[in-house]
Structure formats: structure tokens, C-alpha cells
């Protein structure tokens, strides 16, 4: 699916990522583990094209995403989405959740399929009422479900899961990971699962890469 | 730290160049011919030849950027030119008048900080209690009073009715009470409001709960733990208020007939004494920049996070 090679990134004197190489295969869940400060979030931002690496390549569908300009990148943007650890801060507090969830569709000139949204809401065991609420009015589990729905509406091929449950309660964590797993099987998606919790990683993923001292081992 | 200082010095330099440009431009857009204005006296109109000669003498025949450079060069030598109306050196006038304004500003900033901070602290500690509501009411009222009106009312009450304070002129401490108080009430009440809300903001933080749970005295809790944190935003604002006070002094000096740089600035507008007006704008700006920069330094000294960046316990 995606091949990352020789990735380096420093901020100031601090080397955050040092020669990162890995390949994500189609339909697999690849875990990347590491302590806080090992550059996990930086890595996901680079794959998303939010920051440029100092060196290295990210090959997706035969194209090196690193060297793409803003306009060219847009074509691939929708294919790679992310679910983050603090979902409530990933929704505009002044906007109702229902609007936030469908807003990205128009950015990619996609039509809203009401049936599909309804199905997703049902599948995620959400109450339709949450769409009429604001981010601070719903629980962490609910908003994380919505952020997954928001990403899925774009039909991405790759999901980066950046500690998607580390701010959630254990019972909610189990619920969310279960949903993610089901979707991955149903749609044959590829996940990059970033986590610090080895126990979760062992249950959830097919393959594990350890990011230590800014290197993969 | 070093980078921070270099950045800071750079931005101060840009600001200084900027305000000198603005002051210079004031002279450029001012109505009337400077050469003519500088020659005319009461009952005397200069001849065209005289004006032309003066124009060359003042360098007004040169391109505008050269004029600016010359103007700045003169200022750096301490020469702001000659007053159009009194024909005196502007520098001498400023030196004579500045101490009055300086004294007024100092009194006002002291009143602003002492009363503003204390009232704010008292109100914040007693949030939503009667004393807080009273302080809120008073500050809200003071905050909306036009300075010049208040000054006139003071004169009516304390000079006319009670006869305890002198109305005008420059004498000792007594002469400064009414001007300084009327000049500082708005800034004082704003300081109190900001101090209050800054205290309350700190009460919501975890360190406050922890400090309170330690069982320490109210004094230790509020004054030693909360106040130093809560006062940081207030310091910045006090720096800004120095500017408000410096500018507002023009009004107060006019009413109380204090011969400071502000009251003459108002006069200079009417007498078209633009060299003075330019000097006034530039120098008050300079003083303001100086004070706000000092406040920035003070905040760095108080806040160890910037000062000790990188010094971590292993």
C-alpha cells in the first residue's frame, strides 16, 4: 500500500526520526509502538503531508508523496486519513457535530449518501441525536465514533490510528477497537496503528514495529 | 534566551524607526508652508525671498527621504528644530516641561497599580461576595467616567465647595492630587478588573487546589502562591497603561493648567507649532516603548520558564 523509506526529521538540534523504513501491506494492521517522545506523532503527520521530512520517501500508488506540491497532494489526501487520540479537540467547538461530520465531503466534491451515514451511525451504536449536539456535549467514546465516521465517509484506503483510545476508559477502548477491527475486515482497509500499550497492540495488530531512539527495530 | 533578546532588540529597533517615520510624516502632511510658518511672527509677514532662503536653509528643497534622514540626524544630536510660535529650541521647551508630565505620570501609575492590584486581589479572593460586588460596581462606574468631566467635578467639589485643594498650577504634592487621581481612575479600575479575573482564573488551576489542600494560611495561599502567577498578565497591561496615562495627561494638564508637555501639545495644534508636535509624539512614543520593554524584561525575570530554558534536573 505504502512504502516509507529512509525517513529523517529533526526539529532544531533534536533528531525526532532517524532513518525510518517500513512497508504497509494491503489489508493489514501494522502497529508502530514507542514511548512518548519517540516521534510517533511526527511520523503520522509526515505521512499525512502536514509536515515535510528532511529526507526520505513515501511511495503511495507509485508516487512519492514527499515531493508533491499542495495541489497534487490533494488527489491522495482523501485516501489517507487519521484518527487521533483526543477526538474532541478535532471537532470545531462552534459547529454542530452533524455538520462537522459531513463537511469534508464537499471538499472532495463527494455527495452525501444519507443511507450510508444512517447505516454507519447504526453500526456504531450511536444515537442519531448526537449529530445535533456540540462537541463538548457528548462523551469521549461518542466523539471518537463520530471521528471515525467522518473519516470513513471519505472512503479512505489507509487509516492512521494515532493512539485512538489512550484518552478513553478501558470499556470504551474495547468498544472502539472492536468497531475499528470490524470495519478493517469488512472493507479490507490498511491500518497503521500507533500505540504505547503492548497488550493492546498484541491483540489488535498483524505486525509490530518498535520505534525506539527514533529508529525502527 | 539569547535568541529571544536578539529578536526583541530587532523588533524594538523597527518600532523606533517606525515611530520616527510617523512623527516625521506628521510634519509632512501638516498644513501650511513650514518655511513661512517658521518666519512669521505676530504682525509680520515674511517676503517671498525670505521664505525661499529659509526653505533652502531648512533643507526643504531636498527630496523627502533626505529630509527624513537629516531630521533623524538632528534628533540624534538632540535638535528637534525651533518652535514655529515661540522661536525657542523645541528641545529646551521639552526639557523644561517634561518633569511636570513625568511627575504626573508617576503619581498616576502608582495609584493605578497600588489601588488597582489591591482592589482586584480583594475582589478575586471574595468572588461573588458583597465586597466583590461592591468593587465591581465602583470599578464599572469609574471605568465609564470621562476624565475631563471628572476633573471639572473634582474642582467643583474640592476647590469650590470644600476649598481644600488648589485648582491649578504647578506646586507641590497638593497640586498633583486631583490631576493624578482623575488621570488614573480609568486605568485603575481596568487594572482591578483584570487582576480580579486573573486571580479567579488561577483558582481554576490544579496547583491552587493542591496548595489549598496543603493546609497553608490564607496569606501563603493567595499572596505567595496565586498572586505571582496572577500578576503576570496584569504587568503587561500596566505597561500599556503607561501609554494611556502619558496620552491622557494632555487633557488633565490643560484643565489644571499644568505646564507639562501634554498641555502645550494641545496648544501647539492651535498655534500650528508642528516641530513641537512632532517632538511630542516621538518622545512620548519613545518613553512608551522604553516602559513596555522594561515590563517585558521584568516578566522574563519573574517567569523562570523563559529564563531557565533547557536547565533540567537529571
Amino acid at each position, binding site marked *: 500500500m505504502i512504502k516509507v523509506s529512509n525517513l529523517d526529521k529533526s526539529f532544531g538540534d533534536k533528531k525526532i526520526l532517524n532513518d525510518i523504513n517500513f512497508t504497509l501491506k494491503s489489508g493489514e494492521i501494522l502497529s508502530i509502538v514507542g514511548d512518548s517522545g519517540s516521534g510517533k506523532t511526527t511520523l503520522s503527520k509526515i505521512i499525512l503531508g502536514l509536515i515535510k521530512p528532511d529526507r526520505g520517501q513515501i511511495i503511495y500508488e507509485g508516487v512519492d508523496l514527499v515531493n508533491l506540491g499542495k495541489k497534487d497532494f490533494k488527489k491522495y489526501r482523501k485516501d489517507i486519513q487519521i484518527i487521533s487520540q483526543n477526538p474532541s479537540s478535532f471537532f470545531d467547538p462552534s459547529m454542530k457535530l452533524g455538520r462537522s461530520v459531513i463537511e469534508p465531503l464537499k471538499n472532495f466534491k463527494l455527495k452525501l449518501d444519507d443511507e450510508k451515514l444512517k447505516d454507519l451511525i447504526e453500526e456504531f451504536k450511536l444515537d442519531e441525536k448526537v449529530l445535533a449536539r456540540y462537541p463538548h456535549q457528548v462523551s469521549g467514546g461518542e466523539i471518537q465514533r463520530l471521528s471515525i465516521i467522518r473519516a470513513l465517509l471519505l472512503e479512505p484506503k489507509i487509516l492512521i490510528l494515532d493512539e485512538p483510545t489512550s484518552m478513553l476508559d478501558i470499556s470504551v477502548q474495547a468498544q472502539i477497537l472492536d468497531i475499528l477491527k470490524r470495519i478493517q475486515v469488512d472493507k479490507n482497509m490498511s491500518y497503521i496503528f500507533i500505540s504505547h500499550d503492548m497488550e*493492546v497492540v498484541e491483540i489488535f495488530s498483524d505486525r509490530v514495529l518498535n520505534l525506539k531512539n527514533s529508529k525502527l527495530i | 534566551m539569547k535568541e529571544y533578546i536578539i529578536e526583541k532588540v530587532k523588533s524594538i529597533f523597527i518600532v523606533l524607526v517606525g515611530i520616527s517615520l510617523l512623527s516625521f510624516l506628521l510634519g509632512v502632511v501638516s498644513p501650511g508652508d513650514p518655511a513661512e510658518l517658521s518666519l512669521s511672527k505676530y504682525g509680520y509677514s515674511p517676503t517671498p525671498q525670505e521664505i525661499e532662503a529659509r526653505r533652502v536653509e531648512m533643507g526643504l528643497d531636498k527630496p523627502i527621504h533626505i529630509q527624513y534622514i537629516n531630521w533623524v540626524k538632528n534628533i540624534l544630536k538632540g535638535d528637534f528644530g525651533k518652535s514655529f510660535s515661540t522661536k525657542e529650541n523645541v528641545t529646551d521647551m521639552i526639557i523644561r516641561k517634561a518633569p511636570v508630565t513625568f511627575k504626573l505620570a508617576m503619581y498616576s501609575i502608582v495609584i493605578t497599580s497600588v489601588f488597582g492590584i489591591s482592589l482586584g486581589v480583594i475582589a478575586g479572593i471574595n468572588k461573588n461576595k458583597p465586597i466583590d460586588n461592591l468593587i465591581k460596581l465602583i470599578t464599572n462606574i469609574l471605568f465609564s467616567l470621562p476624565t475631563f468631566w471628572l476633573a471639572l467635578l473634582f474642582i467643583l467639589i474640592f476647590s469650590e465647595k470644600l476649598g481644600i485643594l488648589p485648582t491649578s498650577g504647578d506646586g507641590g504634592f497638593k497640586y498633583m492630587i486631583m490631576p493624578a487621581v482623575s488621570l488614573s481612575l480609568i486605568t485603575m479600575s481596568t487594572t482591578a478588573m483584570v487582576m480580579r479575573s486573573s486571580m479567579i482564573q488561577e483558582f481554576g488551576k490544579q496547583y491552587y487546589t*493542591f496548595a*489549598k*489542600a496543603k493546609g497553608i494560611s490564607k496569606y501563603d495561599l493567595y499572596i505567595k502562591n496565586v498572586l505571582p502567577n496572577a500578576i503576570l498578565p496584569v504587568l503587561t497591561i500596566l505597561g500599556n497603561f503607561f501609554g494611556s496615562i502619558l496620552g491622557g495627561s494632555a487633557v488633565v494638564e490643560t484643565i489644571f493648567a499644568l505646564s507639562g508637555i501634554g498641555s502645550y501639545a494641545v496648544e501647539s495644534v492651535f498655534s500650528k507649532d508642528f516641530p513641537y508636535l512632532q517632538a511630542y509624539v516621538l518622545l512620548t512614543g519613545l518613553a512608551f516603548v522604553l516602559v513596555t520593554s522594561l515590563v517585558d524584561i521584568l516578566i522574563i525575570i519573574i517567569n523562570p520558564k523563559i529564563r531557565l530554558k533547557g536547565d533540567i534536573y537529571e
Partner: protein
Amino acid sequence: MGDIIFEDFNVNFETRKQNVKSVRDMNLTIKSHKITGIVGESGCGKSVLSLSILGLLPDYAKTSGNIYYDNKDITALANRVREKYLGREFGYISQNPSESLSPIRKIRKQFYESLDLVEKNKAEIEKKSIEILKELGFEKPLEVLDKYPFQLSGGQQQRVLTGIAISSSPRWIFADEPTKGLDENIKKDSLELFKKLRSFGIDSTLVITHDIDFAKNLCDEVMVMYSGQIVEMGIDVLDNPKHPYTKGFIESMPSKGMKIMEGKTLSPTEDIRGCRFANRCGCKTKRCDLESPKLYNYENSQVRCFLYDKGE
């Protein structure tokens, strides 16, 4: 003596729009000379419960009922009197160590301030604080005292907080979510730290946590809290859970296979007649919707579930 006894205790947070009932009809004894853990997920009311013992709830919290300590109803005391319990009787270790110290004061001042309650001699204070810090594993205590909080790591900050809390020798220590946000390896240190408290002469501790492993390894007695109520308490609750919620909660841990417990907690604004867990419960009967269960004795636990009602 020294037990903390709740009697019909409630905490409400009333805002313009709603009334959040955080702690509901609490009747509970937290015994002294023990490490007690209150375990629960976010929003269950566990932190509010500990803050209400300390009297540190925010202004807009309304409480009813009583809390007895040493046979005195501490909720009836004047604020001035109640505040005297802080530091001297009740020590508190707050969550988020990185935000729990004043950011612009040196550790020294924040440490001494607390010791000052029990010791007036300056030299003695310094000696004692160095002793405590050494005991807590700092090799250079003097250097630590001269640091600002942001110059320490999360684990170090937590040790400093603990040192401050125990320095005035309170009878009780209350710790709020001590492992929240800490890296795995620091969590282990944290466990050691709390086990050590006894060696400082503090044997009554209440730990509020969502971390089941931490509670299991540390506590003599565990209380599980759900939606404002204690649903189960006893000495082997986490090894041998009885309440359907406790079971589901434990089974959703990754190490236990992450089994899913469906549904979500009832909103704290919602009042119902029956059991507050009934909407998610697999063992639900008719009775669960009609009647609110009490805590029933079963083996060596007390369980708030009709399954364990032997009709006593």
C-alpha cells in the same frame, strides 16, 4: 477512630441548564489503617467523592448528607475550622503532577510552606525536607529544592507532590488518579512510591484510580464506583468480581482479552427508579427496572446487585 463515614451523602453540580448528580446517596465507611482504592471510569464521581472529604469542591457544588470523621460531622463545620484539617489530618496528592505545583516558584518554597505547619525551626525544616526527598529516591535533594517544577520530569514531580503531602504528617493521604498520563515504566515507580507511604508513618490512604492493575497491586480494599454509586466493595473484588459491571469492566482490559461491554453509562443528570447499570446488563430482570438495589453481603464482598440478594 479515624474512619471516614458517609451518611446519605449527595453531591450535585447545578448549572443553568442541568443538574448533574455526581455522588448519589452515599452510605459508606472508609476504614483507617488501610489502603483503600476507589476504582471507576471517568464521570463515575470518584474524584468528586475524595474532594468532598477534603472540602475542596468548587463553589457551585451542592452537597447534602453528612461525612463523619472522628465522630464529628465535618460537613457541618465552618469553613475556617474545616480548613484546619487540611495538611494536618488530610494530605492530598492531586492528579496531573505537572500542573499541581505553582509554575513560577521554586520547589523549596512550596515544600517548606507545608513543613511550616508542623515545624517552625528553619534549619530543622531544611533537614527534614532533605530527608524526605532522599527517602523518595532523589539523590541530590538540595538540587531538587532549587529547581522550578517544569525542570523536573513527570515522575519526579509526582514524588515531590507526595513529599509535600506527607511532610506535614497527616493521618490520611488522598491520591487522585496517580497513574493518569504516566508512561508505563513510571507507573511502576508510582506503585512503589505509594507502597512506601507506610514507612513514613501514614497508614490510611485512599487512592482514586481508573487503573485496575494499579489498584489490585496496591490496595487492601477496593470499592468499584459506577454512575455515582459504589457497586461493589471488598478485599478481593478485582480478582473475584461479582457485580456484572465489575466483571465487564475487568474483562474489557486488554490483558483479559478486551471483551466488549456494550452501551454507555447513564447520564449523571438522569434519575431512574431501578438499577443504574440495568441498561447495559446481561443479567437484567424485571426487578432491576423497578427497584434500586442496595449493597448486599455476599462472601467477603458487598455487591449492589439483586443476584446477590439473599432476602436477608
